[in-house]
């Protein structure tokens, strides 16, 4: 009698253990949802059809454009470090990359917006960060980002930073890390 009850308890607890292991992995998509809600690593995408015509003429928001490269032999610069935009208006920022090495390199840019909370008020129509970029030796490329700062942006965010970091994601990189 007691034995049957014990088995039942154990089965339930084992199930709970397995569920909690699954929950650990479920935290990954949950974390993405959290990021989308709060703006961390935000990469909101819109199409031309979504662009409204309501522009807040009374405000100018400073946007700092920040560039970084990690373990990739590229130069990566913004055409200007700062621009001022009106909320609701489609704005463009141009970046240039140049492959300074003698090999073809595949890079991927990871976007980051600061302050984090402001991330949900920035939407992008075109961005080089949506896809991987391949540059031949010595090749340089101008890459635009077209974005809109939402008219709902709270007053306290008078200044935003759009930051991009290029990483090398090419084949030879992956091979060297996994020499199998």
């Amino acid at each position, binding site marked *: 009698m007691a034995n049957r009850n014990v088995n039942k308890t*154990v089965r339930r607890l084992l199930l709970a*253990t397995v569920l*909690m*292991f699954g929950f*650990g992995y479920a*935290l990954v998509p949950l974390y993405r949802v959290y990021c989308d809600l709060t703006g*961390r690593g935000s990469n909101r995408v819109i199409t031309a059809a979504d662009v409204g015509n309501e522009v807040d003429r009374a405000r100018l928001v400073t946007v700092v454009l920040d560039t970084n490269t990690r373990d990739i032999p590229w130069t990566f610069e913004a055409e200007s470090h700062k621009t001022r935009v009106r909320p609701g208006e489609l704005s463009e920022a141009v970046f240039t990359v140049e492959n300074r090495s003698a090999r073809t390199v595949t890079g991927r840019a990871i976007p980051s917006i600061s302050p984090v*909370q402001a991330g949900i008020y920035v939407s992008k129509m075109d961005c080089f960060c949506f896809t991987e970029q391949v540059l031949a030796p010595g090749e340089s490329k101008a890459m635009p980002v077209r974005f809109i700062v939402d008219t709902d942006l709270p007053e306290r965010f008078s200044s935003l930073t759009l930051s991009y970091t290029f990483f090398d*994601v090419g084949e030879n990189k992956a091979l060297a890390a996994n020499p199998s």
Partner: protein
Amino acid sequence: MSDVAAHEHHHDDHDHKPTGLGRWLFSTNHKDIGTMYLVFSLIMFFVGGAMAMVIRAELFQPGLQFVDPQFFNAMTTMHALIMIFGVIMPAGVGLANWMIPIMIGAPDMALPRMNNMSFWILPFAFAMLLATFFMEGGAPNGGWTMYPPLVTQLGEGFPYLIFTVHFLGVSSIMGAINIIATVFNMRAPGMGFMQLPLFVWTWIITAFLLIASMPVLAGAVTMLLTDKYFGTSFFVAAGGGDPVMFQHIFWFFGHPEVYILILPAFGIVSQIIPTFARKPLFGYESMVYATAAIAFLSFFVWAHHMFTVGMPLAGELFFMYATMSIAVPTGVKIFNWLATMWRGSMTFETPMLFALAFVILFSIGGFSGLMLGITPADFQYHDTYFVVAHFHYVLVTGALFALMAATYFWLPKWTGHMYDETLGQAHFWLSTISVNVLFFPQHFLGLAGMPRRIPDYAVQFTEWNMISSLGGFAFGLSQLLFVWVIIKCVREGKKADEQVWEGARGLEWTLPSPPPFHSFTVPPKVDASVAHS
């Protein structure tokens, strides 16, 4: 330890206990397994303690005198892993094994064979972890919190670290399942949930915390493993992952883990204070509810370990308020203990001394914890020695002192011999004084700006580091006395009767000291004289 079994028992309808090595290797007896857990954690206490001595020796004065910075980092990392997973947790499980069946009137744990397995996983897991010292790249040195990307820079030891964590997780989950299955199904008739001794209650709640949090840790470290070797990018920014996500998942486990370490200690203290105050525990129900509340809240405060990663304001506020709210049930527990002492008839044997020191020193750790929970202030305190002081007050003078109190409290029951009271009190005073010399100055160091996890420091931190190191050496040496008291008790202590302590109440005290190898094969009667409420 063989004396534990030397006693001839009365229930001879069962087998006699096995002898020799096989008795321990294949043991399914809760008392033997409990003993093995306790001895194992005592041994690991000295292994982890030796690492702490290396740390304090290097920090005795500025400059690098003894070890390379990377080895120092390995020392801090391994010290933490060993003390948490190899000392406090196994000691807690050991006490649960020994005491829960005889506290609830059960003949043994519900799953004796699993019990054996969950213990024997531990020595293998730690052998594997310690073996990393001899591998290329050395032992884990990225902190016990294993933050990526740093942790993935570890050399050959990396997979061993991950698998050790997996094994430890499996072991403690098996232990937790066993404890719940035992308490839920094997209580003696008349022993309702609200008659359970508080130690049993705190362990049920701890066991649920283990089942809810250890699998999450297992998941997190598995992700680290696949990130390093199989090309996933959960935490690799280049692949669209986020290193901060690991911290979220880790601390989702990590904060409940803190309570896994401390809740059994609350239980122990709640057994000891009423015994030596000769007065029933004040507010039994509120103790149970407070424990459950702390456990529940522990799942909603994890991000207070990582305020500085840059969170949205709303998140910072939520985690600050949630963290502060834990102070309420914790306060209730402290006040209940005070009220238990109030108008009691107290005596101050070693277990009571340790329990009282626990109440005071754990409260100090609680105060610094509250300060750390205040987000803006944490921007200064975070990752400094203030944090180190805080968690050592909670874990050493908290969890560890409670375990020592438990050892003195139940040692006569386990061995049938009284320990030497004079030596026991000497051990208490030496430990209590030295531990404060060791950790109190670390508050000052942290506030003055000394970061944690550094092998060398600027000269203005010299004085307090010296004092702290001296306290550390004294505390380390004092623990040799602890071992001596135990050995002396086992070998030549005076015979103990079944009651042992004048104010002791509960089923475990109705058994002879030491209890027979098989106890309560016939369920005992539970009435008001032994029940706790």
